[in-house]
């Protein structure tokens, strides 16, 4: 048996195994539990990286569950695939890499961060389940399976948001997210069922090969777009996001960010790969652009006036998601345009995908920094903090890197991806880069405020005894800082070897179908 051929299965299997082994392992004491936690997250990261290495080479990984042969996508005598299968192309591998990185950093961080609290068995199980759900969403090639993974990650995240259940706010945040999320998930199931009723297939590639542009397809596409836009926090449906991000333990928040990125993956996959016929007509592109611009602007406007650090960052998440929606919408609109428009469309997509990775990494880092501040000072209120740079030099340094990256200051990676988005979105309308730049300025303004009120200023007497956070938390943050710096220093390498591949894989509708259907249909 060649092990590397089974990597897509291991990708979901390892965190799932971790989730169900936890109750057993956690009773062997603290050290065993911590080693187990970090080891399984690291193993997931290693699997993700090796999947990335083979996929960015130009290959699409397909893995069939329960077949006579894991490469046999079409069972004998059938013209379309009926089994559950995983299909990972460069775009999926990019998201998988982000999720695995955030999960690893969050696990290392949580070892010290959660040490003061009980309920470790539940925490670990839910953490692994959420990782498995998010990874599965990006790996699966089957729409119903996608729904199942959405639910796995959502239910785990409801549990984790309400993890500190002695605080009323956590329960409230969890309930609000859960209510809307459940409505959305059940409507998603209706949409998927409708597709099954129309095409007798649930496989994404088979659907992509058969999809037409009728009324029913449009209704389904509209439902899926609004549901997944809700899940990734687009403007009119974003209200759960700051609540949930603020109340979750920080090690989990950094994973929640990437879970919402997995929903973004689903949204883009459906638009680009399954319904390109409808999506490239123009309306869908404009819908994504309008959602993106509203999220960018209103998200950052709300962030400027917040004074609770994690809530502020939660509102920033909304505005960052807006950049990606904008870039992908521009891609949809410009790809079929005349002249240079197609090239600009591809640039916008590259910028958007670069931003996906940047956002997952620096946003996770920012949430971990906020968690460190909470750990050290016991408050999340910026009004009460101040002068902490003297006590926590490492946290300060890493916060500065992340804040500069998210505000798009050169030479950090956020600048590069934003530059690509600015310089390509004007093809559609010159107002779009203007809104994006205003958003960027306001982002910088609010992070200057966080930096000023938390780290600078005179030392406060009640924080004299504050010390730098423990090594585990610093290590978790350091992992993400190093990745941010790598992305900043070698953007060209990542662009050529990762983001361009991902953008091309996304545009290559035929290739996505061919990987599963072969010559059939």
């Amino acid at each position: 048996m060649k092990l590397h051929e089974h990597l897509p299965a291991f990708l979901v299997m390892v965190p799932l195994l971790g989730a169900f082994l936890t109750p057993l392992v956690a009773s062997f004491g603290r050290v065993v539990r911590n080693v187990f936690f970090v080891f399984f997250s690291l193993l997931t990261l290693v699997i993700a990286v090796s999947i990335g290495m083979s996929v960015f080479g130009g290959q699409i990984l397909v893995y069939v569950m329960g077949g006579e042969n894991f490469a046999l996508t079409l069972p004998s005598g059938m013209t379309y695939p009926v089994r559950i299968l995983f299909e990972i192309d460069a775009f999926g591998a990019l998201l998988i890499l982000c999720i695995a990185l955030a999960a690893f950093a969050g696990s290392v961080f949580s070892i010290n961060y959660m040490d003061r609290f009980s309920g470790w068995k539940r925490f670990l199980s839910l953490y692994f389940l959420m990782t498995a759900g998010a990874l599965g969403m990006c790996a699966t090639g089957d729409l119903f399976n996608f729904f199942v993974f959405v639910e796995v990650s959502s239910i785990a995240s409801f549990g984790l948001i309400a993890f500190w259940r002695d605080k009323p706010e956590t329960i409230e945040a969890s309930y609000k997210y859960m209510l809307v999320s459940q409505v959305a998930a059940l409507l998603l199931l209706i949409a998927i069922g409708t597709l099954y009723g129309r095409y007798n297939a649930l496989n994404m590639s088979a659907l992509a090969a058969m999809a037409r542009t009728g009324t029913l397809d449009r209704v389904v596409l509209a439902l899926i777009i609004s549901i997944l836009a809700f899940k990734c926090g687009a403007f009119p449906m974003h209200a759960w996001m700051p609540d949930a991000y603020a109340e979750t333990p920080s090690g989990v928040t950094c994973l929640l960010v990437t879970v919402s990125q997995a929903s973004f993956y689903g949204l883009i996959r459906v638009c680009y790969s399954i319904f390109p016929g409808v999506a490239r007509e123009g309306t869908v592109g404009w819908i994504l652009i309008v959602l993106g611009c509203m999220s960018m602007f209103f998200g950052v406007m709300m962030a400027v006036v917040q004074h609770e650090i994690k809530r502020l960052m939660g509102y920033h998440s909304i505005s960052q998601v807006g950049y990606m929606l904008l870039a992908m919408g521009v891609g949809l609109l410009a790809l079929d345009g005349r002249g240079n428009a197609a090239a600009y469309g591809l640039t916008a997509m590259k910028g958007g995908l670069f931003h996906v990775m940047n956002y997952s990494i620096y946003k996770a880092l920012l949430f971990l920094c906020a968690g460190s501040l909470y750990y050290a000072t016991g408050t999340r209120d910026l009004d009460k903090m101040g002068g902490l740079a003297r006590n926590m030099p490492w946290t300060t340094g890493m916060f500065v890197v992340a804040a500069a990256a998210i505000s798009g200051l050169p030479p950090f990676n956020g600048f590069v991806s934003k530059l690509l988005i600015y310089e390509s979105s004007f093809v559609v309308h010159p107002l779009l880069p203007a809104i994006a730049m205003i958003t960027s300025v306001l982002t910088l303004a609010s992070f200057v405020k966080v930096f000023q009120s938390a780290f600078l200023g005179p030392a406060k007497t009640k924080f004299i005894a504050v010390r730098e956070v423990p090594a585990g938390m610093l290590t978790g943050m350091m992992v993400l800082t190093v990745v941010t710096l790598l992305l900043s220093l070698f953007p060209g390498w990542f662009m050529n070897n990762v983001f361009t591949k991902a953008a091309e894989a996304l545009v290559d509708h035929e290739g996505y179908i061919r990987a599963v259907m072969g010559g059939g249909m």
Partner: protein
Amino acid sequence: MWGQVTSGFGYWDVFTWFFFFALISFFVLWVRSLGRMDYKRNSDQDEIYWSGNEVPEDGAQISVPASSSYWGFRVAMEPLYRILLAFHSGNASDYAGYFVVTAALVGLLILL
């Protein structure tokens, strides 16, 4: 080139940026070194000046809280913020309503 990314108009190169950053820092530091040299350490020049009053021991009494930053911006944008704050009402059925309405709007737009 590992540090270079081309967009439609030109390119971004990290190492070029570092080169110019070093160049400009050199000139800035050079100009700075031409400035006045009469600052004395550990003299009265080191003291904090707080409107002529005695500086309080606890920094909490002289720091500006985060809620007060960008006060002018918030006041200028008051009408917008009134709408935005009313929008984030905290009521879960409102949030469900926003979702349903958005889904309906998106559906309508795509169908037309």
